[in-house]
């Protein structure tokens, strides 16, 4: 957050910098005092991102250390020896200072020992907050005393008084001299890790597992974990790093502090990634707990446990609002036919179970095959398609109408009906089972996540077994009722309550429909919602016309059926239309998420003179991820896109795409990230942004349009 605010104010600085020639900021480099009387090994300066103080405002300042060649200063955790720098602030009344925000450290081996720190130059950031009552027109002197240890082979403690006098006024541009240093420091501060991380400790080793799937292992040059506390790991021990489809696993020697690893560890993971233009370092703040949120790194539990959990999850599914009505109606039908021959009922139960198991098998099979093909999908993957979601809304709506009594789908679907012993009756039960499965997919019961997560990491046969256990759990209540006559006798006596219950059960289904329409809204925006709602209206009309003319003359009935079928056909035709309605109108849940890139779309937009920002990215590209997290998807950038009327296209290269590869090649690139800004006219060449982005860089580029 702090980083974002920093970038926003940085952006304001740049904006105003276009119009104002900033007055040079007087930074008098304070003399560092070296107790030995020799020249100080570190020259320090207090630098500011902004040349003025804003009443009640926030100001990022940096302690810049220029370190003599061969010498180093220390990080928050200095490693095997040393001491991190401190700043004792002596600020005017009302001011407050935050803690030091540490840029990513380097590892500095000293003989057999290891230090963590900085060489050459480092800027340690601190956020200061001004009181609201500072008088505009005056000036404020910010003072403090910095102490640090600087070491080569020997160590020297040094200290210096810091002073920086800033005028009080609006936010003014940062000085040209100090802004880049603050910007560099900001980029070197670790970003929160997007990946779940867990920790395993033995008597001698500590293993940190970072669930970062699908990293391009061949592009990773180096990985190092810097713990933020002493004692958890042996700082100097080699770190054995494995990168595979599950993520990064790092094993190293345990540190000397007893029980330290058991309470978890936090620190900074620095990954050096090879890009086209050289190697970049990305730092992530990680917090690994022994409880471990990462499913992939958990010790896998027994198949039996997974099957048990799946069975329980399947049972739970019966209580979900989308499934309960389907099951209840079947159960009600049983009530009405409690006296039917046991063999017949048993066959119905088995048909229903068969329907559930067959459809679960089909779904799981599709899931397994797609995942083997490299698709990163989980349970409920089918709901990623607005077409499927719309279709599901139609089916559940029709089912709800039938429960409300508007439509009689009749014996085949919802009940055992008159043709209890007839074959179509069994087919109906089988179909009801399939329907229950379809209706169940959006409702993930609490136990299912774990079991499915396990299933998907297992060989296909094991995965299928777990999925079928889930299906069996779903089918179990009805199966039990049909197989065990004793249970059936416990059912209440048939009566008018059955009809009323059926009608009441329509409402959970209507609720499910409302939810599915909302999902469509998230996926394709209000236009898609309108089309799906129109489809539902048509289905309602078709149901009414069909039901209302049941007692009419055959001629009328035929006409009504024709009209009803036509309505349903139109409704069905609307669904793909809804699914393909432009997604740019969809509200994005997390800042700017662009519409997918196609060369055609880009050409269209450019022909219209619309400025375009194209983000060539991939899920396995760490730099892309960091850029999106710290800059591209931030509200400030989204606001700038909106203000400048820029269309944001995302070219996702996670999976191979010859189209995207061709565009990358046209920019002389063989990989991502690549950021291109196209201006309003085709005359101007598109502008390629640096591979490391900040909000400031993007906003500045957008301002040039």
């Amino acid at each position: 957050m702090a980083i974002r605010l920093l970038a926003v104010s940085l952006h304001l600085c740049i904006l105003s910098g276009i119009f104002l020639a900033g007055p040079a900021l007087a930074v008098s480099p304070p003399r560092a005092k070296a107790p030995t009387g020799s020249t100080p090994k570190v020259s320090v300066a207090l630098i500011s991102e902004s040349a003025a103080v804003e009443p009640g405002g926030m100001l990022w300042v940096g302690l810049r250390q220029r370190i003599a060649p061969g010498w180093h200063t220390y990080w928050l955790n200095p490693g095997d020896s040393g001491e991190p720098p401190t700043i004792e602030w002596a600020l005017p009344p009302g001011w407050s200072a935050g803690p030091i925000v540490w840029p990513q450290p380097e590892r500095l081996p000293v003989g057999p020992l290891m230090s963590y720190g900085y060489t050459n130059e480092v800027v340690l950031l601190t956020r200061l907050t001004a009181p609201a009552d500072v008088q505009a027109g005056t000036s404020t002197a910010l003072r403090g005393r910095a102490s640090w240890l600087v070491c080569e082979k020997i160590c020297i403690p040094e200290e210096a008084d810091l002073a920086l006098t800033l005028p009080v006024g609006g936010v003014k541009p940062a000085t040209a001299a100090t802004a880049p240093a603050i910007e560099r420091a900001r980029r070197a501060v670790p970003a929160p890790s997007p990946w779940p991380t867990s920790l395993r400790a033995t008597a001698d080793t500590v293993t940190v597992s970072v669930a970062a799937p699908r990293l391009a292992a061949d592009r990773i040059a180096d990985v190092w974990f810097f713990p933020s506390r002493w004692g958890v790991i042996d700082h100097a021990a080699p770190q054995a790093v494995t990168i595979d489809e599950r993520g990064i696993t790092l094993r190293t020697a345990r540190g000397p502090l007893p029980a330290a690893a058991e309470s978890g560890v936090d620190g900074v993971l620095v990954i050096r990634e090879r890009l086209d233009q050289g190697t970049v370092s990305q730092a992530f703040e990680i917090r690994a707990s022994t409880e471990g949120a990462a499913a992939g790194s958990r010790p896998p539990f027994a198949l039996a446990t997974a099957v048990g959990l799946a069975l329980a999850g399947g049972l739970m599914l019966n209580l979900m609002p989308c499934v309960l009505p389907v099951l209840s109606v079947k159960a009600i039908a049983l009530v009405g036919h409690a006296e039917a021959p046991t063999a017949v009922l048993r066959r119905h139960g088995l048909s229903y179970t068969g329907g559930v198991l067959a459809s679960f098998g089909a779904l799981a099979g599709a899931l397994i095959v797609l995942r083997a093909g490299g698709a990163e999908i989980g349970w409920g993957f089918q709901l990623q398609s607005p077409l499927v979601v719309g279709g599901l809304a139609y089916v559940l709506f029709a089912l709800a109408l039938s429960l409300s009594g508007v439509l009689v789908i009749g014996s085949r679907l919802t009940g055992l009906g008159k043709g209890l012993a007839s074959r179509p009756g069994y087919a109906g039960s089988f179909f009801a089972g399939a329907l229950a499965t379809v209706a169940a997919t959006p409702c993930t019961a609490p136990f299912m996540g774990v079991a499915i997560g396990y299933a998907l990491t297992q060989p296909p046969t094991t995965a299928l077994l777990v999925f079928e256990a889930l299906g069996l759990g779903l089918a179990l209540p009805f199966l039990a009722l049909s197989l065990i006559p004793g249970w059936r006798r416990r059912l209440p006596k048939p009566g008018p309550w059955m009809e009323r219950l059926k009608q009441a059960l329509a409402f959970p289904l209507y609720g499910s429909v409302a939810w599915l329409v909302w999902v469509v809204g998230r996926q394709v925006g209000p236009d898609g919602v309108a089309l799906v709602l129109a489809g539902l209206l048509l289905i309602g009309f078709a149901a009414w016309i069909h039901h209302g003319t049941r007692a009419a003359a055959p001629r009328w009935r035929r006409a009504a059926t024709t009209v009803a079928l036509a309505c349903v056909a139109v409704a069905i035709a609307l669904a793909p239309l809804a699914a393909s309605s432009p997604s740019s109108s969809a509200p994005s849940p997390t800042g700017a998420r662009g519409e997918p890139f196609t060369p055609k779309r880009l050409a269209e937009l450019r022909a219209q003179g619309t400025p375009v920002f194209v983000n060539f990215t991939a899920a396995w590209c760490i730099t892309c991820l960091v850029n999106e997290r710290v800059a591209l998807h931030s509200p400030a950038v989204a606001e700038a896109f909106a203000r400048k009327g820029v269309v944001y296209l995302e070219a996702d290269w996670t999976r191979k795409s010859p189209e995207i590869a061709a565009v990358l090649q046209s920019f002389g690139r063989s990989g991502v990230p690549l950021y291109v800004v196209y201006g309003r006219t085709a005359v101007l060449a598109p502008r390629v942004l640096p591979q490391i982005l900040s909000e400031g860089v993007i906003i500045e580029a957008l301002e040039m349009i």
Partner: protein
Amino acid sequence: MSDSVSRRRFLAHTGAAVLVTGASATLGRPRPSWAAAAKVGEPAPGFTSTATSGSPVSLGSYKGKIVILEWTNHDCPYVRKHYETGNMQSLQREVTGQGVVWLTLISSSPGTQGHVTPAQADELTSTRKAAPTAVLLDEKGVVGRMYGATNTPHMYVVDKTGLLVYAGAIDDRPTTRRADVQGANNYVRAALEAVVAGQPVKTPVTRAYGCTVKYS
């Protein structure tokens, strides 16, 4: 699709890599096996080293006595803090007066900061009015590595039965400021008091602070 086929495809798709990253210094030559170093709660590893007098001193000969090990480097600012304030010497005097053995160890290799000849070491003891039982010259760093000594000062307490009961800093103020000696919580004194009272040491392991031990 069989399991092996899909897995092979997956690996081919994403690639898998193993890196071992370590400091070149630690990969290039055998690093001290800190894993085998002294562990608090276990018997303190035995050693024999040479005192400034030239006679060998071995830990085993002090069985039945409490032994304190102090790693030092007289030019290290952190060591100077404790000697120039008289803090280290007064602790030495206080505990040796109670029959505790105090061994000061110097593991700086020749040519590095803190390395001294026996004569220089004795002179330092007399000019600083220090009161160790003996000063041991460990210029090859054998004992230092055995104990995993990383810093100067780095303190160890061995109880009468030969168990290592404390390893770490001298106190809880990891600075070079002389003013911080006053009011600091001295871990070594606390450990000694616990050992004498027959109680477990409350804080048996702390992060030693100071300068790196100048191993070769």
